[in-house]
């Protein structure tokens, strides 16, 4: 047991509210499983040593800084802002479209408490250590309910800013009703030494659609561990775009559970890492029911001394006949010291399925670069033409124009700052 985890458990014992049963369960699991060491397969390439000996640090109360949220031009958004773990948006003051309800994790209404308690921890698998920490400690978050049939136009943009050295834990719970559709963007940022966890759970009912974004834009000394967990019911669909910058420690676990038939999941992930950054993406797709489809593309560029970890697992259960699943991971290394650990994993127990997976790692082609430059094209432009196309392709697939137009220049600028060695 690490010092930090013991303190987390002590802290969690003080929390008393309507979520107590889940919290107790989480504490028991944490005590039973202990701290994940190097031999723990899911943390094999991502050292937790900087966290292990950390002193638990609650956010300073009472002086919540004023947040400054970067606007996304042309985006019709409902913005929910967390600063150092605390929800600073006044939910009561929001004017929401019909069919959309947003509440905090501490509603006074017993029915809402019940709805939250039903969802909290029900989709996120119990094996995520930091998910359990979040279960035990998290008191700040939002619960989004989309009524059956409601088509919610604006993007619910949830921003998680961390700018003090504290432990912060937040939760996003979303229930998308039958035949409804909604767009949710989760965006985290911060550069100071800190530990933040943000786990999101989505229950997507029959024929419902979720357009989802997770932008893990922490940098420098920030440590962020989070997850996005989706449960897809009959004929529902998910289109998710994940973006990862690296930092001291940045880890994202994604689980997609096909719990109904004919569900479709599309997952695109992009990561751009420089200097000594680390980004670790673990995705697990569970095909438990027949006739589902999954299309997953993870693409990244790793420069300097940065390190990326990608673990993509597709598990096709015995009953999941006629599943179509594709998983592809492409990487570009910009320097000799950059590193990627990539591992696609297919586990198939049904006999009538179509599955494909692949992973590639490439390096900068000096000959092609020189060729373009002999035609008057600048080195930076040539680098973008040669090496950014495969990232741009995924950005172009983003269904929301305002988001893709905001993201593309950010990513290309980040790419151009990386040194090729």
């Amino acid at each position: 047991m690490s010092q930090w985890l013991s303190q987390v458990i002590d802290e969690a014992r003080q929390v008393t509210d309507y979520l107590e049963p889940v919290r107790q369960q989480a504490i028991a699991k944490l005590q039973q499983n202990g701290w994940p060491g190097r031999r723990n397969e899911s943390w094999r390439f991502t050292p937790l040593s900087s966290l292990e000996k950390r002193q638990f640090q609650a956010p300073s109360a009472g002086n919540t800084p004023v947040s400054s949220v970067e606007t996304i031009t042309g985006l019709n958004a409902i913005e929910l802002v967390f600063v150092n773990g605390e929800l600073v948006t006044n939910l009561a003051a929001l004017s929401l479209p019909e069919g959309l309800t947003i509440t905090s994790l501490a509603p006074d209404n017993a029915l809402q408490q019940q709805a939250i308690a039903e969802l909290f921890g029900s989709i996120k698998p119990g094996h995520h250590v930091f998910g359990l920490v979040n279960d035990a400690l998290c008191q700040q978050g939002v619960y989004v309910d989309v009524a059956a049939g409601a088509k919610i136009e604006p993007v619910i943009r949830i921003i998680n800013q961390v700018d003090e050295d504290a432990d912060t834990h937040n939760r996003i719970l979303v229930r998308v009703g039958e035949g409804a559709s909604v767009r949710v963007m989760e965006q985290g940022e911060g550069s100071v030494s800190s530990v933040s966890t943000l786990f999101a759970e989505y229950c997507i009912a029959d024929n419902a659609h979720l357009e989802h974004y997770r932008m893990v834009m922490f940098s420098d000394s920030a440590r962020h561990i989070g997850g996005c967990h989706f449960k897809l019911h009959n004929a529902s669909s998910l289109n998710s775009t994940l973006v990862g910058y690296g930092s001291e420690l940045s880890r994202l676990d994604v689980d997609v559970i096909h719990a109904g038939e004919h569900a479709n999941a599309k997952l695109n992930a992009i990561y751009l890492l420089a200097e000594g950054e680390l980004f670790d993406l673990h995705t697990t797709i569970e095909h438990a029911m027949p006739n589902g489809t999954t299309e997953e593309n993870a693409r990244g560029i790793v420069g300097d001394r940065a390190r990326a970890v990608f673990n993509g697992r597709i598990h096709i259960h015995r009953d999941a006949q006629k599943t179509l699943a594709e998983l592809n991971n492409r990487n570009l290394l910009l320097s000799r010291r950059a590193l990627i650990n990539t591992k696609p994993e297919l586990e198939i127990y049904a006999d009538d399925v179509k599955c494909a997976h692949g992973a590639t790692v490439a390096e900068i082609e000096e000959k092609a670069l020189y060729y373009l430059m002999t035609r008057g094209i600048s080195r930076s432009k040539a680098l973008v033409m040669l090496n950014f196309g495969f990232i741009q392709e995924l950005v172009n697939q983003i269904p929301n124009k305002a988001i893709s137009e905001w993201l593309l220049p950010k990513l290309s600028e980040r790419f151009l700052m990386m040194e090729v060695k």
Partner: protein
Amino acid sequence: MLKIQNLHASVEDKDIIKGLNLEVNPGEVHAIMGPNGAGKSTLGYVLSGREGYEVTEGSVTFNESDLLEMEVEERARAGLFLAFQYPVEIPGVSNMEFMKESVNAMREERGLEPLTAAEFLKKAKEACKQVHLPLDFLKRGVNEGFSGGEKKRNEIMQMILAEPTLCILDESDSGLDVDALQVVADGVNSQRDGKRSFIVVTHYQRLLDYIKPDFVHILADGKIVKSGDASLALEVEKSGYAFLGKKYEEVDA
């Protein structure tokens, strides 16, 4: 236009060019011939500024500027064009996108507005027809899956669009049949306007039947050992590089 004085260059610490002198005036066509390993391709790479080709001595002046001080792309924008012996395949970047980027970079240098997509397409189609390539080659990845001859024609198409002042053709004839050779030569000849200069690097005299040189130089062991008019090429054709001495006779046999 181009003045090379006592040029020495090495690759991975091996001296390849060993005191080369050459002066090219506007409108002239110079052929450089020589046996394998004489440094013919190296000259093109050194002039274009390829990384790893180190100039150890000498100077190169191009249109009154110090060429060796310029970056690869600056040399291109200043009007130097190198047609490669082995053009690189770049899947994922379309020929069209690539050439538009190139042409507009050149235009920017000359203080001209960038061409719109429609304007460029019109020019590109004309150039494409001129080198007898089907129009769908514009949409394909740069040189991706092109045959040897198609790659050479693609180089000439780029040359036509770039409107350079000095073209260096590095063995643009190698691996071509007579028809393709004719197309490449026609492309080059169409660009001869009395001002634009050419350095035609070739192993064989054959190309020079189609592109008439004003001067022929023989490059051997990193130096120009003999210069003359077009008749020198015919002499080489007839008796090989024997006059250079036994060493080259064997290499070339």
